[in-house]
């Protein structure tokens, strides 16, 4: 009997709480949907609130569900801003119609053209470079050059890759398609698969650990994973190699943001994005995850800057989205799991 009373109490309490929470929403609070993780964005939200007095409410989830949620909520959506990682997701959000164009000279000025939507619906805020990592004991840097050179027979049984389910690999292959065309890219990816030392891994860190353990000699990773590992182990026996420096340059992906199509507070949302593109916020935004600031005037974190300068691909990242479905099908065809 006491259990039943307790149960009823818990239930009614939870419903009461639910009711209160719904009522307490202040209309002037900026609402953000984010697939960039809480530990990375919260300090930035707090800083913004400190500086401007603008309160921010946020909810985190994967990009896919957040975009579907915005699409389902339509005019009733409380969301003002969508923050997400990966150019493909941003492109998809724009295609799905859940973002609206933002006319802002500040954003145009601070964010290079190839890192924002040609229709101004999303803006890159930090860069994630995906490049070659290798074991300096077993590989000479002069043996390395481009992404496509990793398809060479020279690397048979020496390459480790993360799964093709990773959005980062999908974007990389999509951008290779933009650069080389689908047929040539298929040959490249087929070569990678033939060179694999072991089944693809589920994350970048495992790729690097496999190289350290001697299972393979080279791999492709996002540099901030390398940075994290480096911060943990100062003597990490791995080096980064900036790919394709005589050609198109290192493939970069972004995390970025856009204003929701039915944002109830468009002006506040635009001001927030503009603030994010300015030096102080840029340093925080990128530095929190050892990424590169999208604003070219802002220096990277010292640990990141120590990896040296490199030339990044200047192709517009919208192509990562446009070609992504083709990239996934291509990877299916060549058996890249």
């Amino acid at each position, binding site marked *: 009997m006491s259990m039943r009373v307790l149960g009823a109490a818990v239930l009614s309490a939870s419903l009461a709480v639910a009711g209160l929470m719904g009522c307490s929403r202040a209309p002037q609070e900026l609402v953000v949907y984010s697939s960039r993780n809480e*530990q990375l964005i919260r300090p930035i939200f707090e800083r913004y609130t400190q500086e401007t007095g603008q309160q921010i409410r946020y909810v985190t989830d994967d990009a896919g569900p957040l975009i579907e949620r915005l699409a389902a909520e339509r005019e*009733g959506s409380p969301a003002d801003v969508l923050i997400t990682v990966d150019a493909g997701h941003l492109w998809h959000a724009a295609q799905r119609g859940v973002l609206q164009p933002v006319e802002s000279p500040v954003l145009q000025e601070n964010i290079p053209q190839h890192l924002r939507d040609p229709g101004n619906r999303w803006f890159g805020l930090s860069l994630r470079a995906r490049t070659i990592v290798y074991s300096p004991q077993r590989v000479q840097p002069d043996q390395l050059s481009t992404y496509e050179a990793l398809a060479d027979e020279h690397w048979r049984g020496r390459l480790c890759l993360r799964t093709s389910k990773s959005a980062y690999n999908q974007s990389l292959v999509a951008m290779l398609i933009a650069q080389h065309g689908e047929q040539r890219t298929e040959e490249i990816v087929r070569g990678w698969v033939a060179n694999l030392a072991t089944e693809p891994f589920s994350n970048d*860190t495992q790729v690097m650990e496999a190289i350290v353990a001697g299972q393979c000699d080279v791999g492709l990773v996002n540099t901030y994973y390398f940075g994290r590992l480096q911060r943990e182990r100062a003597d990490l026996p791995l080096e980064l190699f900036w790919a394709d420096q005589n050609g198109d340059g290192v493939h970069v992906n972004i995390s970025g943001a856009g204003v929701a199509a039915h944002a109830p507070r468009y002006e506040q949302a635009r001001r927030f994005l503009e603030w994010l593109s300015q030096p102080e916020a840029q340093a925080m935004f990128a530095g929190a995850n050892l990424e590169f600031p999208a604003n070219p005037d802002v220096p990277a974190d010292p640990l990141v800057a120590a990896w040296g300068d490199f030339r990044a691909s200047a192709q517009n990242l919208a192509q990562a989205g446009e070609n992504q479905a083709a990239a996934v099908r291509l990877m299916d065809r060549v058996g890249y799991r």
Partner: protein
Amino acid sequence: MAVDAAVVHGHARGERRRRWPIPAFVLLLCVPAIAPLAIVVGSIAGHDPEVWSHLSRYVLPEVVTNTVLLVVGVALAAGCLGAGLAWLIAMCDFPGRRFFDWALLLPLAIPAYVLAFVAVGFLDYAGPLQSGLRAVFGSSDWFPSIRSRGGVILVLSLTLYPYVYLLARGAFLTQGRCALEAAQTLGLSRAAAVWRIALPMARPWIAAGVALVCMETLADFGAVSVFNYNTFTTAIYRAWSGMFSTQAALELAAILMLFVLLALLLERRSRAGARFVARDAACEGRRIQLRGAARWMAAGGAAMVFTAAFAAPVLQLLLWAAKHASSDIDARYWGYAARSMLLAGSAALVIVGASVMLAYALRREGHWISRVLVRIATMGYAVPGTVLAVGILVPLIALNNAVHDAARALFGTSAGIPLLQGTLLGVLLAYMARFLAVGFSPVESGLQRITRSVDEAAASLGVVGSALVRRVHAPLLRTSLATAALLVFVDVMKEMPITLITRPFGWDTLAVRVYEMTANGEWERAALPAVAIVLVGLVPAALLTRRSAHVA
């Protein structure tokens, strides 16, 4: 006149009964669970032929094979582990039995993706075990790869066997040891008695447990992703987030659901007509005293399972958690834990309550439409979480907008009415869609034990109606209800995609913390909230086993 009126009245009631064979509350309880599934299945209407031809040529052959082998493998392994251990614990005596009785339940609190990550981290080429082997022998190439089909089956079986264990243990305990003794006095050998009497008597529970295991395996995304093992679920995600084809993703999910429905109906048919008896309380029987090597094999087997499925991974989690605790732990953790428990607790109450009502409705009325409705309503457990989450969101938002429109029409404003999506009511409705099977299966199999003859015997003693339920059914159902509540509680504690998409602003739970860390690839930092889930999940598990122990 009065007579006529009565006749007419009775006639009208008969008519109404014939036209509405399904009790209204059955419909009401099934709707939240069926609506999202309907959204998924309804998507077949719009077809994406280009993506589809690609999938059927390059993707489906692999994922169908992989999925079938995985489900069969996990069902067999988890079924044998769960039923075997339950048998040892319930019927035999060996060193450590009292400890293992509850300890073997603990892996329930460990999310499958966590065990997967720990296992791959420890056993893969770069992990400490193989590194050690290489240091000693020079090579570890002979060591079987953990990132293989066998590895996935092993990990999923170790995390999922408690579903079978918990249900089968209850069955063996409540069926008592007398039937077995009776069989042996009738000349059956002990092995034959187990095979021909005890196992068939426990079958509804074992089948219910294995069905839950199969559904969970089908819906699993986290663990198979760690192994990069392609299944139907990963293909659904790939179509969605890789090819941006929500259409193809939902179509794949719909096909998956049709298979599940078929399998469930077949399973029901195979045991239709079978009857199950209740325990004879007067006859307890004695435990089988294991002797010699058997004693230690039993203890050793239980210890191995306990170590692999719980002790070792928890130790690893604790080591990782200790590394990051100083920077990551803060006062907010009280809130995460409290919200996890509140959500899991209220979900357990609501879902077990609904399960009891549905199970009784089927027992009394049992119209085939009700049966099919309930069967469909429990299928949400086999659908990948994120797909179901989106399926839930659509009707929830529609309902929400309808309420607001109505409020505006009536009062001119809807400001005072909370959004349904983003309130706990919405979260609970969503959990209904996901976890009804987890609550319903134990309750239903428990109720099957209470045969008509029990009711008749009670009726002959003048115990009918609510007194029958209270004085006869409730004690007999206690283990089943507690089992159902525990399973729902722990499952909700571990659940991510639905919690993520339906939670109100600021309602972060322990599972949400795990998500925040893993989504960013920071697995070691995810250990802290994962350990907290295990700890919070343990409390009810320990309570439950303590409570049901004196049934034995």
